[in-house]
């Protein structure tokens, strides 16, 4: 990664439920919890909570050595997990794609700010696909046949 820990992402509104939709940029370290929070707010609105108040669905970035994503039921909570190595790999891949000449041309990228915005858009898209896939395992009842 090219010094992202100190760069400021210029644009990172994940969805309308993002609690801080300012457009002045935020440190990268704040992006991850905001992404998780926005995803969890959407899941909470859609599925509510268990009788004890625990959300029925919960998304987490989890610490692991493995590049992977998981759907697992944890004491009645449908957990959607993306490991941090997978998140990093997707982030770096999205970054590389946002520098690709053909893709830059397709999306009209001309400035660093545009490139960073495209980077976040690609990442948000692929993260959404992964979360949606794990959500699918839960909502389609795939847990009835343990692997």
């Amino acid at each position, binding site marked *: 990664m090219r010094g992202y820990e100190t760069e400021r992402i210029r*644009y990172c*509104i*994940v*969805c*309308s*439920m993002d609690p801080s939709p300012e*457009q002045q940029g935020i440190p990268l370290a704040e992006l991850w919890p905001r992404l998780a929070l926005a995803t969890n707010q959407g899941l909470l609105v859609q599925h509510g909570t268990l009788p004890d108040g625990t959300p029925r669905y919960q998304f987490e970035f989890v610490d692991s050595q*493995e*590049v*992977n*994503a*998981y*759907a*697992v*039921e*944890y*004491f*009645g909570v449908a957990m959607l997990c993306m490991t941090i190595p*997978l998140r990093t*790999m*997707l982030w770096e*891949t*999205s970054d590389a*794609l946002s520098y690709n000449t053909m*893709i830059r041309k*397709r*999306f*009209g990228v001309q400035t660093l700010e545009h490139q960073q*915005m*495209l980077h*976040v*858009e*690609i*990442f*948000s*898209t*692929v993260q*959404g*696909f*992964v*979360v*949606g*896939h*794990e*959500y*699918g*395992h839960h*909502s*389609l*009842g*795939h*847990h009835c*046949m*343990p*692997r």
Partner: protein
Amino acid sequence: MTGSFFSDLVNGEGGSIEDQGKEIHSDGLSVYFGIYGVMVGDRRAVANKTFGAATTDELLLSLYIIGVVSFLFLRPPTTFDPSTIETLTHPPSAIRLEFIMRHLKRWCEESRRNLLAFLNATTLSNESTCPHCLRVQERSMGRNKSRSLNSLTMSNELF
């Protein structure tokens, strides 16, 4: 902890054609949620701010396909042969992509017919006759028929 554990990026042996059908099914649901979000939902407004006047349905479809493909091809392709392909936990990436594109095409047929020409011209080949695709499709269809949730209707219609 209760329930089973779906591990979704590490592909290997120990799976079955039924497992592969589940993966295709989950991909399909994800596609329907994801493309709706990008084209119609919250992310459209975000994309409008990102890409400005250049934002079109075609551009957003391109964004979606680029994102999904980047996930499928993060890792080297799984090695398989006719004797092991049905023991994989996930279908090979090329087959997942085949079904993802079918889901996208179906969504466009239902909701954005203006994109069909773009989709057909740039991304879709003729319907696959790959034997393994047909086997996975058959398994997905069997499971879908046993479910009655309205939310699954969209995916059911694909097969």
